[in-house]
């Protein structure tokens, strides 16, 4: 998809810019990946006996696929709330570096704190991937409404998936749900590769793929955050060393 032109966006109202972001989300393959993923989550929510309103509220409030899977299956299976909260928190730790690396792109010196609340809540893997790719082509003053539009676009796709999955729950064959679950790793891998620009980005991707399972097998808790810190720092360090040696 061609990025929106800079002169075009800077002259439009915040609502028009948000709408451009919303459309950009729906033109991304990731919107359809989100629908597929949330069909699986909607079906799971139904199977564990939660209401439709609860399923929709969960997608809007939690807005993190893996966390929702844990929440539904743990609570549905009668796990203690505190245990469930810990598991959800551990799985959502990935949002921290994403928010930190998104904000410097959208914030301006005088941006009020309240203007950042919505884009921060809307931050999820899909929104982060497409925002990082598209925002450099968007004029800075239009970036917050544009990012909000991208986030709301993906969230609306997720709600479509949640509804479809909730209603189809009993009739989904296992082969289809396996394929839906596979959408997340394949689309995240490809979209992240497409976003890699710097040597440190590439190294972080490869090192993370290797270290992630090792850290998980080690069962030390917060393994994803440790993977990020160790692999990300190594990647950044090697990149700096190469620059210094040039």
């Amino acid at each position, binding site marked *: 998809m061609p990025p929106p032109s800079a002169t075009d966006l800077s002259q439009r109202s915040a609502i028009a810019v948000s709408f451009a972001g919303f459309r950009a989300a729906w033109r991304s393959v990731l919107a359809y990946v989100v629908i597929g993923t949330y069909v699986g989550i909607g079906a799971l929510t139904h199977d564990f006996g939660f209401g439709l309103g609860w399923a929709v509220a969960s997608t809007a409030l939690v807005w993190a696929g893996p966390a929702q899977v844990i929440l539904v299956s743990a609570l549905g299976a009668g796990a203690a709330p505190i245990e469930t909260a810990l598991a959800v928190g551990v799985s959502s730790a*990935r949002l921290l570096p994403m928010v930190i*690396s998104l*904000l410097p*792109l959208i914030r301006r010196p005088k941006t009020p704190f309240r203007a950042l609340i919505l884009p921060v809540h809307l931050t999820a893997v899909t929104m982060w991937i497409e925002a990082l790719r598209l925002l450099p082509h968007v004029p800075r003053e239009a970036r917050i409404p544009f990012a909000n539009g991208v986030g709301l676009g993906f969230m609306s796709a997720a709600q479509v998936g949640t509804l479809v999955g909730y209603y189809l729950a009993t009739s989904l064959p296992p082969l289809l749900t396996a394929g839906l679950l596979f959408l997340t790793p394949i689309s995240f891998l490809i979209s992240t590769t497409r976003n890699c620009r*710097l040597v440190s980005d590439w190294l972080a991707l490869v090192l*993370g793929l290797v270290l992630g399972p090792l850290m998980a097998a080690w069962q030390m808790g917060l393994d994803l955050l440790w*993977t990020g810190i160790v692999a990300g720092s190594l990647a950044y360090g090697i990149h700096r060393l190469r620059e210094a040696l040039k």
Partner: protein
Amino acid sequence: MSELHAYALLVLVGFLPSEIWRVLGLVAARGIVDESELFMWVRAVAIAVLAGVIAKIILFPPGTLASVPLVIRLCAIVGGFAAFLFVRRSVLTGVVAGEVVLTVGALAYGI
């Protein structure tokens, strides 16, 4: 579980433990400028976390994906990635190719 109780749990056990990381990010991002060295490091950390998520789902898959053998899951992710690299770097092509390999493999295995 009563209706109200379910919604209370959603907020306390689902929403808050996720949102806390977003709010922490909002606080931690103060003073970080894009194009800076710190920004590049955080970006590398975020990419590595995501790579970890991808590898974990393939090696320790959730739900029905676990019924597909590891070798088929690996072939599907490598095949999808190769299709993306060699066919005009198209995300759609890569995702579809990966899903086709997974489905054909699973059918051949008898799922």
